């Protein structure tokens, strides 16, 4: 087991309610790695991500995420696991009742930051990182989809997580904006964080190839990067 190992799933069965969605899921992720999870709608991409952040309980198999054993994790520990994971949603999920700055400061205060100057500096930093340095006072609904998604990425970066989980981050965006977001995520993985991105945006995948895991018919398989992925078969 390498020191860089950050996620290690071994023979995990993923259930949604009582339905078995994926069986015997095994894969591991190292720091700084970029991984696509692809598959049809309903094939279990989101369920894998929800298992990793302990939204779905682990029922069988073993899973190690950022030092937490998901088999034995207690309810009280789940928030602390999630602080090591930055999460990016398809539907953004910003707190609609407060502005961008307060959205970000909520996360910082929730994770134990006390000093106001530190909080303000950190928010400044991450907003710069996603090119939104001057928009902190805006309400989420006043931003475009791409901007909101960048805010969500900024939020995911706040606590320097080891892993970024991105569930269809480009699902609601136009192709150009999607590319921007993907570049941003690639850049983030370049700085030593693992990025796991569930997507069905195959043109993008073709343009920015990386390690790819495919969910199909209740199983996952690694797709050979060098081989041409049969996109038409994935589309139907």
């Amino acid at each position, binding site marked *: 087991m390498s020191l860089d190992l950050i996620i290690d799933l071994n023979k995990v069965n993923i259930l949604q309610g009582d339905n078995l969605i994926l069986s015997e899921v095994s894969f591991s992720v190292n720091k700084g790695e970029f991984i696509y999870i692809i598959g049809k709608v309903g094939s279990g991409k989101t369920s894998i991500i929800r298992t990793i952040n302990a939204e779905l309980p682990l029922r069988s198999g073993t899973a190690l995420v950022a030092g937490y054993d998901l088999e034995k994790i207690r309810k009280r520990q789940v928030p602390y696991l*999630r602080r090591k994971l930055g999460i990016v949603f398809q539907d953004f999920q910003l707190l609609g*009742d407060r502005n961008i700055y307060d959205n970000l400061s909520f996360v910082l205060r*929730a994770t134990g930051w006390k000093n106001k100057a530190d909080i303000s500096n950190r928010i400044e930093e991450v907003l710069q990182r996603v090119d939104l340095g001057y928009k902190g*006072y805006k309400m989420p609904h006043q931003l475009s989809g791409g901007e909101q998604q960048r805010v969500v990425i900024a939020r995911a970066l706040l606590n320097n997580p080891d892993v970024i989980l991105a569930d269809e981050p480009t699902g609601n965006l136009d192709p150009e904006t999607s590319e921007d977001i993907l570049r941003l995520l690639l850049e983030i993985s370049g700085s030593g964080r693992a990025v796991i991105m569930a997507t069905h945006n195959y043109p993008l995948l073709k343009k920015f190839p990386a390690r790819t895991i495919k969910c199909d018919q209740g199983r996952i398989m690694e797709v050979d990067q060098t081989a041409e992925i049969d996109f038409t078969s994935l589309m139907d």
Partner: protein
Amino acid sequence: MKKDQKVVKRRLRSSYIISIISISLLLFIVGLMVFLVLNARNLSEYVMENISFSVILDEDIREVDIIRIQKNLDAAEYVKSTRYITKERAAIELEEMLGEDFISFLGYNPLSPSIEVNLFAAWANPDSIQVIEKDIQQFSYVQEVYYQKSLVHLVNENVRKISMILTGFSLMLLLISLSLINNTIRLSVYARRFIINTMKLVGATNAFIRRPFLYKSAAHGFYAAVLANALMFGLIYMVQKEFADLLGFNDIQTIGLLFLSIVLLGIVINWISTFFAVSRYLRMKTDDLYY
């Protein structure tokens, strides 16, 4: 830009104001019922302490003995007040009542001197009066103890019935109010269930998510209670002007206590309802939020 933010804030505030007003109206009803129950007790005490009985004395009793008996009665724990009525005084009172000069008609005064006794409300019931009657009859020079048995019985029965109905009614209203307040709060938390879920997913602990909800709702409970108290104060003030004898508190302490308990009730019920409402959505899985 800034203006839009203000619009959002104003909308949020107006939704808060609506829930504060509905909670304050319910607290107002609760307070009003408590006020009525407390007053009913005052009222029944007032009626009961006005029930009196007469201790008819021997005709040839000496002044000293009368004073001794009166003193003895005054010292008893159940006696609120006594009044000595002389033969002459009794004659004048009877004359006024009959409107006829019966002494010149009869040629003598047939009345006996007596002592009128008012009891404290707690002893003004048929059972106690019977015991007291026996007690007093032991005194020398006492001819008889006279009171209207049926009146005592009737007053007691009616007071008991009325206060039972009033208490039952106010308990029911309290229950209704509490459940409506609980519902109001649950709705306002329900509207924020996705926000609660997002907070969970970015790594906030349950206590951290709950805290601002609790503080805000406690503050809202406080505002609602203050509003309810203001309404109640206005109403009591107006009623007291019209029926000073029947309704109203003359003692500041009881009013203060009532107002204070309304404030406490407002804060506590809001806090508890919010706690359970938020906890419900903290426990819920993401998929269940859509139902």
